[in-house]
């Protein structure tokens, strides 16, 4: 479903942001991406979204080379991918329901309101549908972004430190929600610093350090030591 082939990216200073990255993620896999700050986790996610283009190598999503120079359908690509960020990225002057609906409108969904309500229900915040982001707690805001990410049947979910801004109790609620999403056979790439989550879920773990993949282990645990 997602494939990196010898992907490298350099900063203007000449140092590598990513160096010869190669891996593949099959449909329905739950993969943790771990590594210290600045290791290149976010860059990897942005390459999948075609927010970045590699200097070398290729990135494939659903067998389509999204890193190709002549790839002109980034909008269509992003409609297939749901994103969850540490800083939520919610539109502040729209209600929770509208925030989810806008993603569906972009996808030309036939019944955006009903589908948005379904997603909010799955995320457990259907009672807050009419609330604006400022009226929601951090945990509720993150649930809202998850609802937006899964609405419309997006099959790939990219999460960049999704538990970074929430308290420990809410953190486990968010993790539980991701497990629930994964049960629907969605592909999840979850970048995190949190060892507890990684160790608890026992999923595939890709460890990135200084722009290189240093470990790729099925049912792995959190360890930055080599």
């Amino acid at each position, binding site marked *: 479903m997602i494939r990196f082939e010898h992907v490298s990216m350099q900063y203007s200073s000449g140092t590598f942001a990513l160096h010869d990255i190669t891996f593949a993620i099959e449909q329905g896999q739950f993969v943790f991406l771990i590594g210290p700050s600045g290791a290149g986790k976010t860059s990897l996610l942005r390459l999948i*979204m075609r*927010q970045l283009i590699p200097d070398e190598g290729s990135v494939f999503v659903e067998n389509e080379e999204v890193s190709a120079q002549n790839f002109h359908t980034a*909008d*269509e*690509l*992003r*409609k*297939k*991918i749901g*994103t969850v960020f540490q800083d939520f*990225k*919610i*539109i502040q*002057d729209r209600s929770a329901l509208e925030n989810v609906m*806008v*993603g569906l409108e*972009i*996808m030309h969904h036939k019944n955006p309101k009903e589908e948005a309500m379904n997603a909010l229900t799955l995320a457990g915040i259907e009672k807050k549908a009419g609330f604006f982001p400022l009226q929601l707690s951090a945990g509720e805001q993150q649930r809202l972004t998850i609802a*937006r990410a899964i609405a419309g049947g997006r099959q790939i979910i990219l999460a960049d430190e999704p538990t970074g801004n929430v308290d420990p109790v809410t953190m486990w609620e968010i993790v539980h929600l991701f497990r629930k999403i994964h049960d629907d056979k969605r592909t999840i790439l979850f970048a995190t610093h949190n060892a507890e989550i990684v160790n608890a879920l026992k999923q595939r773990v890709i460890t990135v350090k200084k722009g290189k993949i240093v470990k790729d282990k099925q049912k792995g645990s959190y360890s930055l030591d080599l």
Partner: protein
Amino acid sequence: MVLGTLTFSFTMLFIFAGSILLLTKIVGYIKTQPQATVYFVKDTQKSAIFKLREELMNTGKTRDVGYVSQEQALSYYKQLNKNDPEILEMVSKEALPQSLEIYAKDPTYLEDLAALAKKNPAVENVDYEKDIVDNLIRITNSITAGALIFLGSQFLVVFFVLFMTTTFKIMRRKQEIDILRLLGASKYFVTRPILKEGLFINMVASIVSITIFTSGYLYLYPHIRTFLFGIPTLELLENFPVSVTIWPANIYFFALLGLSTMIIGGLITMISTFIAASKYIQ
């Protein structure tokens, strides 16, 4: 602010565009009038008159040279003075000379044509309003050139205002636009609300400006009518389904002017939004 600037610019556009159109039509009308009249001495033979007519036409400087007999001259005279029976009683066809009416290809040829006619011994007098025609054309050309420069600058102002407004809106909504782009929204999807707003403001500004312009015209109409005394009804467009008259201006003229501004303003809105979106939305 934006609405005010656009309304002002559009009102100025109407004033200058309307003036240019009116002046162009008036000059066009004047050019259709005889620009020089050659009067012949009494009892001149028709053959001599037609010989001179041929000479004038052979110069290649005339569009037409028309012969006016004494009977025709009397008929015109009667038409002109139909409300004054006393004058009509006093004049007979013998009192009016035969004449040739010269329509020059260009007013600058009038001097040569008049000189040629004056050489003919049968010619009593050549009457032409060279200075008036020349001055009118010169003034019209100057006003048209000035107005075109002004119109161009107003278009630039409109473009600049709309471009800056769109840019400001994009910057203000940058976070929202980035989120929408992340969700797969196309550039068109994210700029559509900005474009709609721009088109709406453009439409309101056009309606307000055409209302101001029409009110101004109606207020000044008595003065303009005095100034343009003798100018007949001037059609703006030939062979148009409805009669659009620029003088005196009718409702269709104002409607056409307003509609044209809405369309042109709409195009400028679309172009400026497109450029701003291309530049600032990644």
